[in-house]
């Protein structure tokens, strides 16, 4: 069992984020990203389970000059495994998918996910065609991962094993249209509302 704390991992990943664009998978990773600082260029999902990586792919293809980071959970990623293959075929150099893997469904009673039974998401991403894929178990590697998110040629995948602790719930705004509009305005300017 990993001793990494999910809040510290996500806070490190989002430190000095610069112009990074972030998609947060629903549930705990969304609260983690919000705890690190609510930001207009973070799009926290409140639904659409299984679609975080594909939302990141759409953003990465639309904005090839920007780096895009998807932060999601193991249960959310398991629901969209096919998207690993789709990303592997598209090979966007500016996309990173980081799975915060507590081996649990955190919002529904901490039931074990398949990763608790040996399913290796990092190996799956590599087999699907990601440019690189790493399994992270220690804090020193998390800072290296943060630098890779900003600089390494993608698509990059990381599976970060974290402790199965329940953290406080830190909520971003809920309304989908608001989250979309503030993201587009921050990225595209006020003229985005005239598109």
């Amino acid at each position, binding site marked *: 069992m990993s001793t990494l704390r999910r809040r510290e991992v996500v806070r490190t990943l989002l430190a000095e984020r610069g112009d990074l*664009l972030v*998609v947060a998978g629903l549930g705990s990773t969304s609260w983690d990203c919000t705890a690190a600082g609510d930001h207009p260029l973070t*799009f926290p*999902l*409140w*639904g*659409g*389970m*299984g*679609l*975080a*990586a*594909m*939302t*990141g*792919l*759409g*953003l*990465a*293809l*639309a*904005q090839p000059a920007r780096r895009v980071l998807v932060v999601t959970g193991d249960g959310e990623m398991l629901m*969209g495994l*096919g*998207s690993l*293959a*789709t990303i592997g*075929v*598209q090979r966007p150099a500016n996309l990173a998918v980081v799975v915060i893997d507590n081996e649990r469904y955190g919002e529904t009673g901490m039931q074990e996910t398949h990763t608790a039974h040996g399913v290796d998401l990092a190996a799956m991403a590599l087999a699907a065609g990601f440019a690189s894929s790493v399994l992270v178990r220690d804090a020193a590697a998390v800072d290296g991962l943060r630098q890779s998110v900003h600089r390494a040629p993608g698509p990059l995948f990381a599976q970060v094993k974290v402790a199965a602790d329940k953290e406080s719930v830190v909520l971003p705004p809920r*309304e*989908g*249209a608001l*989250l*979309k509009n503030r*993201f*587009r305005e921050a*990225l*595209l300017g006020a003229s*985005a509302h005239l*598109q």
Partner: protein
Amino acid sequence: MPDAGHKRLIELCQADARMRTVVMSTEEEGVGLATGAWLGGAKTVLLMQSSGVGNIVNALGMVRECRIPLLLLVTMRGEYGEFNPWQVPMGQATPEVLRAMGVIVQAADSAGEVAAHVDAAARIAFGGYAAAAVLVSQRVIGIKSFQEQSAR
């Protein structure tokens, strides 16, 4: 997502330098892709067979809540003269399933209607930040039979 009814359209899209085609492993992925692309300022259109509509139901809730423009071009199976009984349940339910999730549905029953319906659906989707689907009938794309399938 490929369908025989989309074959020529897919080829045209792949040949068009102004478009990027993304093949997916399931239709649901396309709703995520469309959401991310719109966040980044790009427009998308999703091509799928009517069976794929069953795969995107929960995802449609996301585009509705976020008011993401979503244009769906759906070629029908199980709708008119279908030879495969396994296609019939989803084909018959397709318009109701889409409407239940708030998608604006425009059915094209003849080839002459398709272009105008696609134009209208694109206007209402991108003009109104809505989800809109054009259902292209089997009367337009032809009715498959086992004999035709095995001759291919």
